[in-house]
């Protein structure tokens, strides 16, 4: 359990890279990872959650932000990769209480093998949260015909001056992109890792340098053997 409180004008950036044992190829064993993470923002404060989830057999994790103070900012950047029989159910809650509060959600899910990968989120704009803004982008990439990708966002808005935008896409990894890479001599496995890393760029960019390098490697490793 993690609790963050950002007082006036404070800024917290909390980054996680999670690669606990996911179980074997048949889905035996592996860690169950149930986490509570929440944050409270006072005026002009900012909390930014960044997570890269590649491990654990089952992950339930919804880092949230209560944007209490005026002009406070909440961010959630997430990459969740699941392979074999892993299950990841992650997302965030952004509760807008203060005026001019702003939240951004970028979530990238990649499911391979027999895995299930879900985004579950809530954006709530309370009555008093005038001029609140939210932008959410939730993308899913599918890499196995028996894997699943699910998107369950909830948007509750009680203020007319709010501006909320949510977008989600689900698609297969681009065959044209794969072909293009392979035509330039790159192996399929490398090409996938390249494309997936590119797909997650916006999130990986949020990580501190040494973390980002680690995370890129992890992505490639967790997707190993997911094709062909």
């Amino acid at each position, binding site marked *: 359990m993690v609790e963050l409180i950002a007082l006036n004008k404070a800024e917290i950036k909390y980054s996680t890279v999670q690669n606990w044992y996911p179980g074997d190829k048949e889905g035996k064993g592996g860690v169950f990872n149930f986490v509570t993470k929440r944050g409270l923002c006072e005026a002009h404060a900012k909390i930014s959650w960044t997570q890269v989830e590649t491990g654990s057999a089952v992950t339930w994790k919804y880092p949230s932000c209560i944007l209490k103070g005026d002009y406070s900012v909440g961010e959630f950047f997430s990459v969740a990769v699941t392979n074999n029989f892993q299950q990841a159910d992650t997302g965030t809650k952004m509760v807008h209480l203060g005026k001019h509060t702003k939240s951004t959600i970028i979530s990238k899910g990649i499911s391979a093998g027999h895995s299930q990968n879900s985004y579950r989120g809530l954006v709530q704009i309370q*009555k008093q949260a005038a001029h609140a803004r939210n932008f959410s982008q939730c993308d899913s990439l599918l890499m196995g015909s028996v894997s699943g990708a699910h998107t369950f966002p909830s948007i509750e808005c009680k203020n007319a001056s709010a501006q909320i935008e949510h977008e989600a896409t689900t698609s297969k990894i681009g065959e044209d992109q794969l072909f293009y890479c392979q035509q330039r001599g790159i192996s399929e496995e490398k090409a996938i890792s390249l494309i997936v890393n590119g797909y997650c760029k916006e999130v990986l960019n949020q990580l501190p340098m040494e973390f980002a390098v680690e995370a890129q490697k992890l992505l490639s490793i967790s997707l190993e053997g997911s094709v062909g």
Partner: protein
Amino acid sequence: MSGTLIDFCKQLEPTALKLPASLLQAARDGVEFQHHFPTTREEPWKYTRLGRVAALKLTPVKINQSAERLAASETIDIIFEQETWHCAEPTAGLHINFSADLDASAWNACTLQGHVQHINALSAQGGVAIRVDANTKLIKPLRIIHRLQGAHTGLILHHQLILGNHASAQVEVFFEGTSEDSYANVLFDFFIGAGANLHTDMLQQTKGTHYGFHTQRIYQQKDSTVALQTLTAHTHFTRNEVEVFSQEEGTHTQLYGAFIGRENNHIDNHTYVHHTAPNCTSDENYKGVLADKATGVFNGKVKVYQDAQKINAYQSNKNILLSDLATINAKPELEIYADDVKCSHGSTTGQLDQHALFFLRARGISETKATDMLIKGFMAEIVGAVKSSHIQEALHALLD
């Protein structure tokens, strides 16, 4: 919470339809098991409270079996007005019957989901059963009008439309009139044959403290096309449930909707598209405009089943709040178990474009007029998808 579901059904008459015994039993079990009306703790009713519905004191509307004939007009009309129903002479290849005799074989495919459908199965007093023969292309639109009136009425209807292979039809459905403290539960099953084409526009604009529950279930066979426009304006309480079962390859489904709420209106749209077959497309576009203390709900779900490859599903929901007391709850959902798909959804909520508003006013247009123009513009996509000239006119009038 007051009144159980069983108490609620007791005020109504037992069904006048010849339902398969298994379905009836399922409905009885369902009501018994659920016991009370669902609360907001249950996901499908998270944003819609049923306390007022449970407390309604109702007198059922029984429907006379035989229809009064209507004179021929530009549309083939079917009208439900209290206990009478009126029906125009069918044209070639078209059969219109009272739904007590409707085709039960088609029902074998159906299951019942949720208390709305359970109540309908237990208490439906009639409805219309329409069959269009294979290869028949109806020239005149079918127009089904529900004229609500009086107080404390409970109107439970079950309609059915069977489109034969390669048949085509255009349908207009109206809910209108004024009715107080009343309840309607109208279920419409559409069975769309291979290569058939259905276009349906539905307008709900009943006035008064009326509680309307509308269920559309659409079963699509190979290469069929369905377009359904659901338009709700200024109703006190409406819950729409549209469920599409794309059962075979090559289907295309278009679901468009508009909800326009004011005062204390509560308008709830639930859609659920099941893609069980490969190579199909669905395109969903719902828009809401909410003023005063109105509440809008949009919950759209697309489920792509395993092996249903090459699905292209698109869903868009855009809302405008015109007042600080208005509320919107949106829940666009994607549930995908196949890998070769292209699905996306987008949802936006905001106010009218302030720049555009300013621009119009700077050109001398009054604020109210400018607002109306922008709302009209916002809704143009949906209004444009409506084929029924009656409904188009009604919408233009509503948006003015």
